[in-house]
């Protein structure tokens, strides 16, 4: 049998093969897609934070400026966009909070607090802050 010969090969010298990483490496696995989706939602979190700051800024400029800002928020396209934003933010928040026990390892009297309790603590804090904000918005001034 005639064997093929690689002309670039030098006898007794290693010649490694290094694969080229495909651009769409992240669609190979569901976990990678989820990771990329979580990363891509980060700019939207920044947008939501900037939106909140703009709201405070509008409030600081007086009643008329704040009314204009609220009117802009109530425009149809803005409502649809912010509805989509809410879903994106919920995805980011849930996937992020579920990861919390990986980083936070707490002990009470020498015993490690279970991961589920760390996650529950984060959700409880999220719920408390959200409830407070809703109460603040609903009660009016």
């Amino acid at each position, binding site marked *: 049998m005639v*064997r*093929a*010969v*690689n002309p*670039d*090969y030098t*006898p007794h010298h*290693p*010649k*490694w*093969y*290094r*694969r080229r*990483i495909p651009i769409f*490496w*992240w669609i*190979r*696995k569901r*976990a*990678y897609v989820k*990771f990329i989706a979580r*990363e891509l939602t980060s700019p939207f979190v920044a947008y939501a934070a900037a939106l909140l700051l703009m709201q405070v800024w509008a409030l600081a400029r007086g009643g008329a400026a704040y009314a204009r800002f609220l009117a802009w928020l109530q425009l149809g396209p803005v409502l649809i966009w912010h509805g989509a934003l809410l879903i994106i933010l919920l995805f980011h928040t849930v996937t992020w909070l579920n*990861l919390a*026990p*990986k*980083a*936070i*390892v707490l002990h009470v009297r*020498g*015993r*490690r607090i279970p991961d589920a309790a760390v996650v529950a603590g984060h959700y409880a804090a999220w719920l408390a802050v959200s409830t407070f904000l809703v109460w603040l918005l609903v009660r009016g001034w």
Partner: protein
Amino acid sequence: MAESITIEVQRYRPEEQSQPSWQTYEVPFQPEWMVLDALNYIKDNLDGTLSYRWSCRMGVCGSCGMMVNGEPVLTCAAYLKGFTPGPIRVEPLTGFPVIRDLIGDMSDFLEKLSRVSPWIMREEEPPLSKGEHLQTPEQLAEYKGYSMCINCMLCYAACPIYELEPGFIGPAAIALAQRYNLDSRDQGAAERMKTLSDAEGIWACTFVGECSTVCPKNVDPAGAIQRYKLAATVDHFKSMVLPWSER
């Protein structure tokens, strides 16, 4: 039940080819066989030129890690029946340069592992007359999980960052550093932090989390890295607020 199953193996023989190719083998299907048994059958009966690593055949030595149908697994712990009806695609672990067939070059990992000083470091050693370093079960539990690493490299193959950023120290090396940092007998955490807190250390990790998912020993390297990030951040702020205090 099928009498045979098809195994597609990635072949790379550098003296003959510049790119890998696929070779197909039919092996008898035995429900109690692992993928490694099928490879051994090929080696012994069909093609003696097939090259791969293996040793203990019981999930301890960590040498038979390969990509099976795109997932990094220990082939000695992956039943053939888990991949029926086949074909089963076997490739070398991703992220490592291939030397031959299913054998990757692990030199990069070994160099990085030595950089994190994976041994107990002491500032001063008490005399032997003081007796051994005692540890409570709680102190042992702190690091024991991380000490189960068998250096099988599945976590590196699952980590896209290691392949994209070859400088990244990687999951197993950081988990092993954490194994010693959390050991009550060790005093080298500050020394290791110098290596691990730079851009190629913990901060290169973007928390994909697959390293922990594929780990056959439940070592949880992703958790180790995130804990390290938290510790490094706390350390940084402590040094800003209390610059005179010892870290």
